[in-house]
């Protein structure tokens, strides 16, 4: 399915090759497969909540297992691999090197994903994607829980390896007459997110190890009866996973930095402020982890510190938004599918950010903590921003990957439906949270407001589902039968380069 750079090869040769586009293709297909699997789970959850009272899901155990796997899949098996896929395809090209720095390491990093995915999906554990002790230690049934732990450990290693690969490729393998200040912003985004991974993930690896030994009963790190502290795990966890949020969002922003100038027929408004914002984000992402834990009896001082830390991350993100708008300003914008996704992504990115600022205000945590507000908020990020950026970029790289053109009309319809759906689901969920509905519940008492809003959200989810079916058909059909793309300039925008086929490096 890849645009073969040499000559057509049997698929197994592509599968076991170490060339960056082949590995990228593997990442791409894997991540998309899991996008659809995880999405199916999400639809099941929304359908179950359409009416109060148990619907078609047998019992709460099944429900809990479903939302656990949904979360884990979307984050670790869709978003991360997709970003890595894009990086594999484009980073070497952007730094004008023949391949990733360590091709074998690259392939190894990929081949760690299938086994861990198998562990996660076979086990189908039930302790939510953040496995908080004591529940995950004393209540979560084995072997599912242990399989989940092992699966995530492997994934952690895999993402560390690919991060190392990206950093070395960008820093060491870029073309000698190309300075770091000329690496396109997509490259910078991967540089900064990889840096975050290197610092953040090991902490979680340690936490997982402690969790495992606790479950085996050989240690009591998180067991209060022997002097452990359950909250310690939450600190370790969020020290990894708050920065992880930025690991997910930064590449998505980088992708928008590719698309928006391209379709506005302008260079980026300010390359330097983009770079600055990326690096700044990477640094401040570590100053805010405990804003997830206001309710765990933190002192006023702690809360204040982490609120300030959280707010400190906002200007950087705001600079990106400004950069996007300023780039579009005075351009001649072609609203092809990728551009639409990016613009929609910016809009939702802003609303998610605003919600985040409101959220970080300490007292409001009493209202929003662990309610559907939080669900709506982070879904606005992971779906509204990250998935939008990613899908936009998927359309953008489609001609390069397959040598064919996707169906523009259906691409646009996909975007419009997904956007409407996203607004319906996630904005409603914010309000639902304000009405006090806790997250992760299999059933809810029949309060009229709750029922109404749950049904709106579920309908929105259905709309997204439909758009995704359209997407799938469009991708498969266009891959096979799509009309051959003009590889120099698939959208007929003029200008010098469409990335993979650039004649010279962009930006001065």
């Amino acid at each position, binding site marked *: 399915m890849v645009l073969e750079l*040499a000559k057509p090869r049997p698929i197994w040769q592509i599968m076991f090759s170490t060339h960056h586009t082949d590995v990228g293709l593997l990442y791409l297909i894997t991540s998309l497969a899991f996008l659809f699997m995880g999405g199916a789970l999400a639809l099941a959850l929304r359908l179950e909540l359409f009416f109060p009272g148990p619907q078609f899901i047998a019992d709460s155990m099944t429900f809990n*297992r479903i939302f656990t796997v949904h979360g884990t899949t979307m984050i670790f098996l869709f978003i991360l691999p997709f970003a890595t896929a894009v990086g594999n395809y484009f980073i070497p090209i952007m730094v004008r090197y023949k391949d990733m720095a360590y091709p074998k390491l690259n392939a190894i990093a990929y081949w760690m994903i299938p086994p861990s995915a198998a562990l996660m999906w076979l086990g189908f554990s039930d302790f939510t994607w953040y496995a908080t002790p004591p529940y995950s230690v004393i209540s979560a*049934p*084995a072997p599912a829980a242990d*399989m989940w732990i092992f699966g995530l450990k492997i994934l952690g290693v895999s993402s560390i390896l690919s991060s190392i690969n990206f950093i070395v490729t960008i820093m060491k393998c870029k073309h000698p007459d190309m300075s770091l200040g000329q690496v396109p912003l997509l490259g910078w985004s991967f540089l900064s997110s990889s840096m975050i991974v290197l610092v953040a993930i090991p902490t979680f690896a340690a936490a997982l190890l402690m969790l495992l030994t606790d479950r085996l*009963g050989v240690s009591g790190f998180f067991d209060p009866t022997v002097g452990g502290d359950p909250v310690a795990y939450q600190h370790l966890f969020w020290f990894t996973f708050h920065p992880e949020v930025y690991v997910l969002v930064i590449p998505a922003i980088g992708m928008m930095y590719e698309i928006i100038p391209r379709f506005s027929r302008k260079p980026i408004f300010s390359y330097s402020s983009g770079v600055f914002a990326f690096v700044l984000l990477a640094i401040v992402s570590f100053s805010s982890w405990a804003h997830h834990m206001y309710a765990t009896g933190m002192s006023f001082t702690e809360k204040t510190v982490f609120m300030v830390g959280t707010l400190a991350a906002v200007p950087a993100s705001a600079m990106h938004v400004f950069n996007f708008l300023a780039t579009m300003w005075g351009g001649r914008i072609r609203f092809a599918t990728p551009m639409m996704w990016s613009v929609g992504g910016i809009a939702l990115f802003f609303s998610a950010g605003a919600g985040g600022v409101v959220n970080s205000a300490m007292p409001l945590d009493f209202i929003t903590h662990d309610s559907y507000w939080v669900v709506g908020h982070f879904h606005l990020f992971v779906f509204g921003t990250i998935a939008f950026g990613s899908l936009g970029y998927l359309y953008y790289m489609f001609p390069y990957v397959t040598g064919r053109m996707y169906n523009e009309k259906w691409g646009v319809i996909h975007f419009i439906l997904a956007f409407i759906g996203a607004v319906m689901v996630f904005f409603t969920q914010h309000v639902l949270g304000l009405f006090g509905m806790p997250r992760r519940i299999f059933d809810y*008492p029949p309060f009229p407001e709750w029922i109404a809003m749950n049904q709106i959200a579920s309908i929105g989810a259905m709309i997204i589902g439909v758009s995704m079916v359209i997407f799938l*058909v469009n991708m498969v059909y266009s891959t096979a039968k799509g009309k*051959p793309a003009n*590889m120099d300039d698939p959208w007929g925008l003029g200008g010098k380069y469409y990335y993979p086929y650039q004649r010279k490096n962009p930006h001065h």
Partner: protein
Amino acid sequence: MGSWWKILLSIPTKKSTSLIGENLSHMEEPIYRTTPERTAKMMIIVLAICAVGAAIFFTLWDYWISSPAAVVLMKSAKAAEEAPAVATGKEVKVSLAFVESSDLRTLAFNALPGESGNNPTIEASVGDKIIIDVVNNGKSFHAFGITQEEEGFAGIIQGTDIASASNPLKPGEGGKTEFVPSKEGTYYYICTVPGHRELGMIGKIVVGSVQAAPKVQAAAPTGVKHQFDLNFVESSDFKTLAFNALPGEEGNNPEIRVQSGDEVTIKATNTGKSFHAFGVVINPEDPNTVVWNSAIALPSKPLKPNESGEVTFLAGAPGTYYYICTVPGHALQGMKGTFIVE
């Protein structure tokens, strides 16, 4: 999805190439574009993998959540020792008070060392119900527990603890607990606040042989059979739980009377929406004191809605027992009936 299947089935062989690629500076070779054939192969591979995975997953659906974590098994192993006690119906009432010397250096129960009644030794026989009243007459915090450990504050037998080191009895506060020893030997009642045991807050419970009370031993099997149906029922708001009928209705938590040695068969059906498990216990507060292997399902592996289970056992020594839902809290919420053996 129709067109989608057509793609999977259609296997054309021609490779369409284009000329555009060729005049590119860094691309000598022509562009080979993906063909339906290759797409179909790829889709088949992906779907096949998913199918295999799904097959394994669903055939073993419940296996993946079949056992609790190792640490849980270890803990419950400790508690289980205390479970199968045969109640003698005899009761031993003890009242204990935490006392401290004025300098707080010496701690003890009831009276300081040297005075009479210091750390009294409790005599009982297997199956007796020891009822302990504890009050904190000191100035600092204390907590109560019974253990078999020679030292330290670990291994507290489940259900025998009053307060805890992290949430202790404040001065003047008190509590009540029951303990039914299941085997002969020496138990220790201690203050579970770390260090207090070493400072002297420790007393013995000497458990003698059950011969002390021969008349209340389990009678030989009588061959008489009883069959009871018990259904777990829940009020619509789940707040009240009960057997057979909700409180106030006819047949709520029926009282069961059998002769010692009778063969009792219990069929429990979960007619509710949440999870339940059945067991006959000595102390309704403590689901771990299930007697005569009368348990149906377990809190960790409960009866799902509309499942039912059956158990047959011999009614043991005479006394008053309780049949409850062993899922923690459910007995407190009303799933508790009396089970009297004569």
